[in-house]
């Protein structure tokens, strides 16, 4: 079995290096094909491993070699395939295989075609390292690796110019890329601190050793570690207040948004919490876990609210990603780790599908993203319409599609735990989710053909791309039916979470309520947008609409109160402190020496008589010194 581990892990690396060899030459289709084949190989290997584990095989550990060894620290390149990591592996490799094939079509006209595949495969490799590592340092490799690949991919169209935030809130791809990297780094520092805490208290970074030591540690240490690791997760999963980068990251090519900023990388934070479940499920850190759930719920609601009014096709989907990540954190924080993982997987399928559909629309609309300028696209893009429809139904949580099962389970968990406020917020968010998903579908595909004003002639995507998207559509439809078997599979490793008897009795009412809320959200969307765009000036000028449209003014706040002061303080540090104080002091000392020499130089007149006079002065001074020392001594 070990060879499958290596195949699954290294096929994407090989693909990346292979594509990189052609990185500077013109577009070559075979690069995309070979990369996709290698990714498919990786998926096959992952699937083989998954079936092996599902059949009751023992978790596989492989240790390749020592990485860092200093003092007592020993970090190997160790990989582990168990129930959790194999689930992630299958999800990651499946979505990325589809995205690779999709990209062959989507990046068809891009002259940096080969470079794109190199980055994309490198990302998959990093993500696999992240999920497969058997220690925190290896996780951190993947963690930073996906960060840097995300930087490369968001900034893929680096040649675009910076524009003012009024024109494009992301300013430019390269700006958005830097923002993503730096915000992630803030969280990474916290993550490192978490790693340090665990190392100095358990003496190792291996998961098994660390988790075995946990019961012997103080509450304070556990709390610090839990908080620090969670802050790390917040950055990668774009939780408030580190969320702004995710919507700006939509500047990257759409396949990237589908793969990285929806299905895989942003779920790394959730994965970390799930992986560290022995820590987060301890009683000593129950407050931290509750905070995770509360923050997740808040973000679910907060992000959904911003999606309600946005006009940018990709940004709406990005907000919905944020919101769904909030759901996952809510579940993980409440102790329902397997439900969080289940939602993670289901979400990956329909969200990737949604993004890829959006990519088709962009392709058809010549990179126009404003849904107010679309409308009636279903005539020309029937397949995409169906895909987006399926994905939106799944996202909105309408049975029998995947989203219903996983999201409903999370809402039930909130009810089951008796955290009513969280439950209410999650139910309301479900309604909002349904509304904004269908607002977007209706504005894009139904109603009048607004794009005609702009002289655009939309056309459907290539056939093979549409075919490649079909597995995702299928999974978005049927993944929910596997809830039971997934629970059985995953709870061999993760703590099981069962609803109480009381909740169980109410389950149909609860599910019905959520369904009613979701359907009414869709109905409202149909009423407002089903027959084309009717703009409501009064509503659009209202305070709340403006507040949501401007993302609660948070990017503005960051720019004014963090970025600008930082730049100003830096400038001041350089020009005033470094040049005028530190360096000036050094120069002043040199100048004092120089000037004292320059001034006293005049004594050197060349006139012997003057010299003798100075000698007399010196003689008298020495006498005085001698006298004083005699008196004092």
């Amino acid at each position, binding site marked *: 079995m070990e060879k499958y581990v290596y195949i699954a892990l290294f096929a994407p690396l090989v693909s990346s290096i292979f594509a990189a060899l052609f990185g500077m030459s013109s577009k070559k289709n075979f690069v995309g094909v070979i990369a996709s084949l290698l990714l498919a190989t990786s998926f096959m290997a992952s699937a083989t491993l998954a079936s092996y584990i599902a059949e009751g095989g023992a978790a596989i550990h492989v240790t390749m070699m020592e990485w860092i060894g200093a003092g007592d620290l020993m970090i190997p390149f160790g990989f582990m395939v168990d129930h959790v990591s194999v689930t992630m592996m299958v999800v990651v490799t499946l979505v990325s295989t589809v995205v690779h094939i999709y990209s062959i079509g989507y990046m068809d006209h891009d002259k940096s075609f080969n470079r794109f595949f190199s980055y994309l495969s490198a990302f998959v490799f990093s993500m696999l390292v992240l999920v497969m590592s058997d220690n925190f340092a290896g996780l951190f490799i993947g963690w930073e690796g996906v960060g840097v690949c995300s930087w490369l991919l968001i900034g893929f169209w680096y040649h675009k110019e910076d524009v003012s935030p009024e024109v494009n809130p992301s300013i430019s791809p390269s700006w958005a890329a830097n923002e993503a990297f730096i915000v992630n780094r803030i969280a990474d520092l916290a993550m490192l601190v978490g790693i340090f805490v665990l190392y100095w208290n358990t003496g190792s970074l291996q998961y098994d050793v660390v988790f075995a030591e946990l019961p012997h540690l103080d509450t304070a240490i556990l709390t610090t570690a839990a908080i620090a690791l969670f802050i790390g997760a917040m950055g990668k999963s774009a939780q408030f207040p580190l969320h702004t980068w995710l919507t700006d990251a939509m500047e990257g090519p759409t396949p990237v948004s589908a793969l990285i900023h929806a299905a895989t990388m942003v779920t790394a934070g959730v994965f970390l919490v799930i992986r560290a479940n022995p820590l987060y499920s301890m009683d000593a850190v129950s407050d931290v876990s509750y905070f995770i759930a509360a923050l997740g719920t808040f973000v679910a609601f907060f992000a959904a609210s911003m999606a309600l009014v946005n006009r940018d096709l990709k940004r709406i989907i990005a907000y919905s990603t944020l919101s769904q990540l909030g759901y996952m954190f809510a579940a993980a924080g409440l102790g329902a780790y397997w439900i969080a993982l289940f939602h993670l997987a289901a979400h990956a399928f329909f969200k990737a599908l949604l993004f890829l559909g959006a990519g088709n629309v962009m392709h058809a609309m010549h990179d126009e993203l404003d849904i107010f300028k679309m409308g009636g696209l279903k005539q020309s893009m029937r397949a995409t319409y169906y895909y987006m429809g399926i994905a939106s139904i799944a996202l909105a949580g309408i049975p029998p599609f995947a989203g219903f099962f996983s999201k409903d389970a999370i809402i039930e968990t909130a009810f089951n735990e008796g955290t009513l406020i969280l439950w209410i917020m999650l139910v309301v968010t479900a309604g909002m989710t349904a509304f904004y998903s269908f607002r977007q579908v209706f504005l894009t595909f139904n109603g009048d053909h607004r794009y005609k004003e702009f002289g655009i002639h939309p056309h459907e995507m290539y056939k093979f791309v549409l075919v490649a998207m079909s597995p995702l559509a299928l999974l978005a439809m049927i993944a929910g039916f596997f809830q039971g078997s997934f629970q059985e599979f995953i709870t061999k490793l993760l703590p099981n979470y069962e609803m109480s008897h009381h909740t169980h009795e109410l389950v149909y009412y609860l599910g019905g309520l959520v369904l009613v809320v979701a359907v009414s959200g869709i109905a409202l969307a149909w009423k407002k947008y089903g027959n084309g765009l009717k703009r409501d000036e009064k509503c659009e000028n209202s305070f709340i609409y403006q507040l949501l449209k401007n993302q609660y003014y948070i990017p503005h706040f960051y720019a004014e109160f963090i970025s600008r002061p930082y730049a100003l303080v830096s400038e001041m540090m350089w020009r005033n402190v470094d040049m005028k104080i530190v360096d000036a002091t050094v120069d002043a000392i040199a100048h004092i020496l120089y000037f004292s020499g320059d001034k006293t130089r005049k004594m*050197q*007149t060349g*006139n*012997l*008589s003057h010299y*003798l006079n100075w000698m*007399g002065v010196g003689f008298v001074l020495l006498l005085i010194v001698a006298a004083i020392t005699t008196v004092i001594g």
Partner: protein
Amino acid sequence: MIGLSHYLIISGILFAIGLVGVLRRKNLLMLFFATEIMLNAANVAFAAVSNYYHDLTGQMFAFFIIAVAASEVAVGLGLLIVLYKKFGTLDLDDLASMKG
């Protein structure tokens, strides 16, 4: 009775006269005279103190000084004559050629 202090006062006065000469005079020859006065002030003090302690070392030292002063004058005066021949003056204000 003439005691040690009288000699020392004389020596001090002589030394002061010599010092003032060194500081104020501009003519090199006069400077020589002034240094000679100062040396002799030291000689007086040596001899007096030597007598006071009944230790001949001080007087020996005075002889040494006299000898050194004599040879110094011999060399110095020679140099002065060369200087005078070259510049036509012994005034220090006109001899300043090594300005810093």
